[in-house]
């Protein structure tokens, strides 16, 4: 643990104490009454008393403010969203979790490299860019750059901008920015350990952050090929998400205030025209919860998604009787990145987790944080995010078979997957039927002809401007097959 900073001594101590924990003598089996009701009848009585005394009046929510107005965009989300079936699989991807028997491992001890401008292997993705009818499939060799694309969070987010397209993808322990002028020829042009990418008024902006450091560097590119280091961002702390439109750039960042023991980190919204000089903005004046907000951009409009905290319960004397960390969904849009308007009220557990865009519509995937399995839902907007309509049938996919017991009981999920590339949506049902849509409401049937999900196969798709990458995983054999379907 020698690589910990001085302030991480506490973590070393925490680990030393935690290592002393001893597991129960026997693996728990059967009834859980011994643990679930550890506090037994007294707990139930206490809860009832607290509920009766406190009542709903002391649980108050923070009230959001609003405002809003102005311009046009370019960023979109492609690919994965809530998986189709797993009745008891948690949302975490097994392959990305800490390895089972691992002993805690220290972080890297060497200073990570700064971002570098690269010109690695090129790949090409042929196909047509609109009015897809079907696909011509090619199985990709394992050493194809296209077969090794993966992205933080499991999705590829294609940004469409004045000089073509761009997205970020993981390459081992580093992240690459891939750019293309035409959606056919792709080139990795920038590499860093961790990259946030957006398209602003002057071109592409990449925020290079090293995961073991809070130091960030801004790189800008006017043509998508040549990058220039612009130094550290000014007027902003650690950037956690960024989005851009022709109106500017918006970021969510942690900003420090105070010094020494009084130092605190606050999540703030910030605006910039160039990605280098930032101005902190009040945003929608929401008390964001511990997950923090995420900024996104679609069809020329900024969106802030997340949750706000509900105040703790207090007695009339101000003494905290009980508190519970609860959140209420927040969903806001802005055209100028500075004034924000609520995208409508939402149910108490209806959190937006991801936005996908197409030429004439937007899709918002929602999640219920309190339902095991996530309870994914789908909202559709055809007025660029001002108003949203729930679609319980998940477009043309329909619902997957209901989960009647165990994890995820009572929740629904789509019977397939929907991807987007900023121009259109692609819905792939688990039985191999496929549709495209420009607005998320009117769907046109097309021929898939590629791999499909089955009892042992799981297929995920990522959508590029002229085709799709289909990743087929055989759960029985563990074999993975990656194909590119060129749209025709």
């Amino acid at each position: 643990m020698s690589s910990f900073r001085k302030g991480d001594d506490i973590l070393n101590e925490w680990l030393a104490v935690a290592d002393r924990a001893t597991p129960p003598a026997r693996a728990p089996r059967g009834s859980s009454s011994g643990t679930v009701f550890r506090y037994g009848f007294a707990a139930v009585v206490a809860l009832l008393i607290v509920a009766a005394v406190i009542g709903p009046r002391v649980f108050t929510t923070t009230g959001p403010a609003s405002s809003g107005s102005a311009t046009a965009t370019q960023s979109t989300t492609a690919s994965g969203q809530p998986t189709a079936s797993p009745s008891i699989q948690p949302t975490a991807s097994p392959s990305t979790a800490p390895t089972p028997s691992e002993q805690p491992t220290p972080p890297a001890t060497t200073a990570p490299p700064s971002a570098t401008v690269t010109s690695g292997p090129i790949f090409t993705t042929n196909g047509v860019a609109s009015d897809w009818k079907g696909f011509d499939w090619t199985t990709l060799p394992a050493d194809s750059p296209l077969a090794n694309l993966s992205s933080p969070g499991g999705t590829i987010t294609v940004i469409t901008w004045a000089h073509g397209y761009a997205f970020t993808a993981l390459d081992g322990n580093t992240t690459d920015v891939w750019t293309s002028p035409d959606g056919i020829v792709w080139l990795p042009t920038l590499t860093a350990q961790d990259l946030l990418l957006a398209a602003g008024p002057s071109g592409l902006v990449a925020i290079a952050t090293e995961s073991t450091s809070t130091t960030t560097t801004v790189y800008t590119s006017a043509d998508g090929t040549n990058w220039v280091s612009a130094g550290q961002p000014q007027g902003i702390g650690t950037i956690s998400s960024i989005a851009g439109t022709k109106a500017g750039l918006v970021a969510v960042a942690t900003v420090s205030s105070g010094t020494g023991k009084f130092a605190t980190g606050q999540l703030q919204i910030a605006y910039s025209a160039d990605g280098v000089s930032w101005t902190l903005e009040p945003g929608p004046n929401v008390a964001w919860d511990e997950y923090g907000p995420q900024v996104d951009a679609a069809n020329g409009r900024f969106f802030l998604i997340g949750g706000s905290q509900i105040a703790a319960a207090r007695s009339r004397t101000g003494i905290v009787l009980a508190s519970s960390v609860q959140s209420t969904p927040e969903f806001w849009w802005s055209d100028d990145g500075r004034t924000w308007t609520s995208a409508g009220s939402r149910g108490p557990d209806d959190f937006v987790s991801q936005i996908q865009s197409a030429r004439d519509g937007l899709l918002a995937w929602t999640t219920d944080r309190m339902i095991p399995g996530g309870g994914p839902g789908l909202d559709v907007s055809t007025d660029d995010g001002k108003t949203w309509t729930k679609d319980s049938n998940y477009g043309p996919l329909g619902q997957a078979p209901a989960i009647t017991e165990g994890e995820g009981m009572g929740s629904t999920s789509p019977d397939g997957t929907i991807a987007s590339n900023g121009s259109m949506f692609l819905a792939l049902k688990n039985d191999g039927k496929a549709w495209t849509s420009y607005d998320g409401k009117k769907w046109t049937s097309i021929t898939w002809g590629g791999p499909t999900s089955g009892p042992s196969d799981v297929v995920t798709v990522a959508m590029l401007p002229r085709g799709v990458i289909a990743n087929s995983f055989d759960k029985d054999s563990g074999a993975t097959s990656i194909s590119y379907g060129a749209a025709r």
Partner: protein
Amino acid sequence: MSVQAAATSTEVLYERAFQEHWPAVFKFLLAWTNDWAAAEDLAQEAFLRLWRNRERVDWSEPVLPWLLVAGRRLATDRFRALRRRVLGTPQPNSFDDRQRDRWLDVQAAMASLSSTERSAVVLNLIFGSSTAEVAELLDTTPGAVRAAIARAREKLEAAR
């Protein structure tokens, strides 16, 4: 494979999972709750859920993520959290006075961090998980994880 053989097989797999993963599950839940007894209870419950679902779990996949996410969801259950806050929870019985004092000091320092911040910093800096991996486990975004880690480190610096 016969039905009996399959049942025996999942029991063996479950037992193996318990032996291999209990420490990691406990540490993750200790980070999430900052409460020793609650972490023990929740780890127990997470494994109970695995036991109940042992016939439906895909054992060809790593099971640790399943356990961590199940544990986190149990920990965020509103009524469970309220119950703990109302009644309090005991400190570890197996500790002597010096160890208990040591734990209370660490617990107090970590109390300035939120559940997400503690979990993110422990998973990232101690388990060595990437921000993308942590984001999947905590059901949030890599950006939110980066922000949580930054906040956590600032708070820990201030708490020294």
